[in-house]
């Protein structure tokens, strides 16, 4: 049975108020941010009606992977959808869209969070790190990424970005976890391939590097 909550809900979205469409475009150009060409809500619909007083400011500056990104986010929009459909950061996966699987894990101020269950509008002033942002600018992999490769952690790879982010967050918090501690920290990331042993090997190997 189809549950309406399964779909990404864009109902009753208030229109842009303080910023006109023209100003919005100008601000995007000025900030140097690039908004993905694919909007799951077309601009014509988003900007069609006039100002409605008291509506939420939809334009928001997000700090994603060290860069400021200006996006037009709906009040009920989740961070996972903003990342995937507005910022082109499709490394963050949606496995369940309801806090069950961990495939959408990102770091918010260095703490692992499920982005499918985080509202984009609560991200003002936060530092968001996605799987695309953990390697160095020169392309040198994070020790967790390298260790996952060396230990053949990923199989199908769909849960891997989430596994990477939880492991990176763990090692920021506790650079030398025991295997038990690592297992507890990773427990919110499901892997149907069952690659837990190899992922844990990867976390422990990475812990020796960081």
């Amino acid at each position, binding site marked *: *049975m*189809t*549950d*309406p909550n*399964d*779909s*990404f*809900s*864009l*109902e009753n979205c208030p229109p842009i108020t303080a910023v006109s469409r023209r100003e919005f475009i100008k601000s995007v150009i000025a900030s140097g941010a690039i908004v993905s*060409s*694919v909007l*799951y*809500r077309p601009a014509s*619909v988003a900007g069609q009606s006039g100002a409605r007083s008291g509506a939420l400011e939809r334009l928001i500056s997000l700090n994603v992977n060290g860069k400021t990104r200006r996006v037009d986010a709906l009040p009920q929009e989740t961070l996972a959808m903003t990342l*995937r459909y507005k910022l082109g*950061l*499709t*490394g*963050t*996966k949606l*496995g*369940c*869209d*309801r806090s*069950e*699987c961990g*495939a959408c894990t990102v770091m918010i101020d260095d703490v692992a969070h499920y982005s499918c269950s985080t509202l984009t509008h609560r991200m003002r002033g936060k530092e968001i790190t*996605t*799987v*695309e942002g953990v*390697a160095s600018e020169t392309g040198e*992999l994070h020790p*967790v*990424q390298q260790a*996952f*490769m060396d230990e*053949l952690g*990923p*199989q*199908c*790879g*769909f*849960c*891997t970005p989430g596994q*990477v982010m939880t492991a990176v967050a763990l090692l920021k918090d506790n650079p030398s976890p025991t*295997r*038990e501690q690592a*297992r*507890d920290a990773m427990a919110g990331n*499901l*892997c*149907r*391939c*069952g*690659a*837990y*042993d*190899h992922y*844990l090997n990867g976390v422990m190997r990475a812990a020796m590097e960081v």
Partner: protein
Amino acid sequence: MANRLIGANFTPPDIRAKVTGQAKYAEDFRADGMVFCRLLTSPMPHARVKSIDASEALAMDGVVGVLTAAEVPEIPSPRDPILTNTPHFLGEPILAVAAVDETTAQDAIGKIKLDLERLPFTVDPLRSLRPKGPDAREEGNVMIPREGVGRIKWTPEDFAEAGEGELPMGEPALEWSFGDVDAGFSNAKVVLDETFVTASNSHHSMEPRSAMAYWDNGKCYLYGSSQSQSFVHPGIARTIGIEPDKLVYVAENCGGGFGSKGGPYPLQVIPALMAKKIGRPVMMRISRAEEYFIGQARPGFQGRVKLGFREDGRVLAVDLYIVQENGPNAGFGDWTSAANAMSLVYTPEAMRFRGVSVLTNTPQRTAQRGPGQNQIAIAVEPLMDKAARALEIDPVVIRGVNAPGHDAKYGAEQGPITSAYQGEALDKGAERFGWRERRARSGTRRGSKVTGVGIGQAYHSAGSSGFDGLVRLTPEGKLHIHTGVGNLGTYSYASTSRVAAEILKCDWENCVIERGDSSRNLPWNFGQFGSNTSFTMTRTNFAAATDAVAKLKEIAALDLGGSPDDYDIADETVFRRSSPSRRMTYAKAAARAIELGGKFSGEEVDEDLNPLTKASAMAIAGKGLVGVAKDRIEKNGTVPALAVGFIEIELDLDTGKYEIVDYLGVADCGTVVHPQGLAAQIKSGAVMGFGLATLERHIYDPAWAIPHSVGLYQARPPSYLDVPLEMDSDAVDLPDPQNPVGAKGIGEPLMGCAGAALICAISDALGGHYFNRTPVVPDMVINAAAGRPQSHKPLQVNTD
């Protein structure tokens, strides 16, 4: 000749993209003007659509189109349809709505007026077999092999004959036997007659089966979630209603399939058909919740098995009856595979199999890792222990007495097999695991916890033949290996490609794997399912590389004199054995192949190649030295993948929970091609086995056929906390004689052996209590430990 690449670890070419988030899955692709579609699904388990009124929906702002069952190609019944006006399970897609965004599409679905006529339904196979029981389909209630839907009803006497809690055994849809079964039982020292139940369970692939499609210049571009690439291509094209050369199918990565995305499943063509209708790219995102309805499932069994054992544990006779829960459509042949597996794993001297696959109004069934083989493993392996207890034989010994060797026979026909090293696997595992010492600890109490040990075995066929290989050496000195097998995540697409590099003695760094997109000119290959890739694809790549070697030698002989037989290859050059200075690099030979044309550069190819391979060879013709050939290597018999799991647990009798102390899996997969990949499969396959044995099941409200296990947290695959902190693996590593590099597949039995071992260990910790039911959940353990009756009836299915 020692192998350089086969048996060595390597970094798979696609793994970096997986850890950096660059790997693209179906929902990661975008197209300009893309719209979204949502599905209107059946709110009833069996119904007929009398009318659809979509006018209000179509009048909504942002709604682009509606696609109904009447507008899509009809799939021959009872195969899974694309969309249907006769839904056979709750959640079956009836129509699709496209809109500029998902919310609008979902809102539009709410505006569609659907008039449904209720039809009879059932979620219990035995109920459907009753004289006046409900039929899941109007045309019948069972799937008859090679015939289709039929109707079988058992008599009241059939039901009355069965004792309390025993499976009645009325008219079967299929029966076979070999040997003298009655004599086997009369000569047996111990005879067991056991009724058992194995639950249906979902696949839980982490990537829901989302898909995106658009049309451009008469071609359909479909981005799907698929285990397989070339093998599903013609079927997907046919489902869309186009010729295969009008389809570009992209399946670079598959976020888990486990059998549910192995074939050309129809659902994925909905965005293609919608895109054609509305003239815009269409993304169809499937949610986790929807996966529990349309994401397929493993069939459950209600079974009965009679086993006759000689004093030394030898299985003299087997009499097996399986009632399979088939789902509403064609389903899958788990029940017959289960019987075939028993015939091989226990090599009984005589065996009879009877069974019937009954239609139910529950989600469509398809193969799930070890379809049938793994259900029978978790059902029957504990019974081997029960017999071993009665005969006072060690569990390793009773399995060893019956273990298949190379002369073992398979299935109803008792046909040959290519190799079996199950005895070696048992011995190697028992030694490595310290079975004798651990068994001595069995039954040790520590507070409320008891130690239990167990062994499990499982089998799956593991190889096919007759597919094509395609490689190309370029004037730049690169070896391009074209593989159309698919990318399920085992890295076997890459490890089997290394055979081409091995035969051509190429540096792996100079190799490029072409895959993941049908426009990359891929050969005709089998699907990535059925544990077959390691056997099948090593053969095709061997064939293509061998063809390339022959062409290198011919070109060298043409240019440098002598005959091709005078030449050999090394260091990416072809040289004359008698005077090694007469040599030509592969790069030069590739340039010469282009000049020579004809067969050397792929302009002329063998007639026996598949049309898809021919088209791919034509597309790369003139761009290097092309090696292309059909696998004509002899294959005589079934290729067995066999596995053994060893486990030690602590079972808490107060909570019913177990903790796995140690696990070792041992594989008979022939020669090991990729040790690290094998280790990953042995351990991770075991994790799925633990889920099958103790966690996962379908649950239905029998009154309304409403499923209640529709979340990861409800019908749940194992997490980090359900598995041992560390796991161990090993392999027999002895060659299969019918594979050029000795390889066999292995993926599936690695799951069943672990699940079976876990059940055996739980039963062992309980001093020999056999549940005859999976999953074994904590309340069953608590009841057993306290000597209380179970809350379920023995044959109850689809309940908690």
